[in-house]
């Protein structure tokens, strides 16, 4: 088996794991926040979405490069 394909699979798996943990923490805190102060929901939603984008960035970059490795666009 080619090592590049293995590397791509590992990258995508680890990225999914990290994104799951990060988003889990983020949205559990967001839900805690709107449970304490329901009137702050609209403001917290925007902030949560920005943070979602920031948290998601590195996992999704890893996934994109993993796809490039899987389809042998970039080789190892």
């Amino acid at each position, binding site marked *: 088996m080619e090592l590049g394909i293995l590397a791509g699979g590992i990258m995508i798996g680890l990225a999914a794991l990290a994104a799951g943990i990060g988003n889990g923490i983020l949205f559990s805190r967001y839900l805690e926040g709107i449970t304490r102060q329901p009137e702050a929901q609209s403001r917290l939603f925007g902030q949560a*979405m920005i943070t979602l984008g920031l948290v998601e960035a590195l996992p999704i970059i890893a996934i994109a*490069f993993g796809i*490039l490795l899987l389809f042998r666009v970039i080789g190892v």
Partner: protein
Amino acid sequence: MEATPKVEFLGLTFDVTVIAGSLFTAALVLLITILGTRGRAMRPGKFQNFVEMVLEFIRGVNNMSFDSKKAERYIGFSLTLFLFIFIANQLGVLLMISAKVDDPIPWLGLTKEVLESSHDEVAFFKSPTADINVAIALALAITLYAHFMGMRKNIKGYLSHYVKPYFWMLPLHLIDELAKPATHAMRLWANIFAGEVLIVILLGFAKPLITGAPLLVWIAFSLFVGTIQAYIFTVLATVYISQKISDEH
């Protein structure tokens, strides 16, 4: 992964899907804004209402990062950026044209080897933002503009910012300034690119009963991700510019 038609011109390689996609997006943005501001009425119709809603949304984004005077000045910039990226992101989800090409088309750069490596799949129309060159161009333009405005405002303050609060922090500041445009561009590109690749993979399976439901879910999620990414790209652009031109330095 699907190949794209490419044209050689003056020794440079141009991706046809990127050029067609960006021109189409720009035309669509122009059409929406012209139609939205034509014949404005005191009692707005449905379409004018929608455009005003988008404008208010962008005003809120600007007010988060700028002070109120600068927020008004940068509203055209943010609105253009948001509309362009938003529509460009949705193009690849809703209007993607990809086909199987059996015979090589040499003048479009689809030679036999290229077709072989992409399993005959060729995309003729897709999101321009799914190409990393477009995302890097956008992010680089914003970064250069931010640095230029920072220097023009106060060159001494701009330069001394790199060695504050201590001189040994200079490498940290340099890494920070380099990482900003890199992550700014790759965040947008990777989200749209990964979304499109998964759509193509799901479409490629010839078992619609199995892949139909996941495909619908993923298309809905891609629409959501495209909106969020356009929003985040705009917010970060305003934040990066306001960091350089704010008065705290």
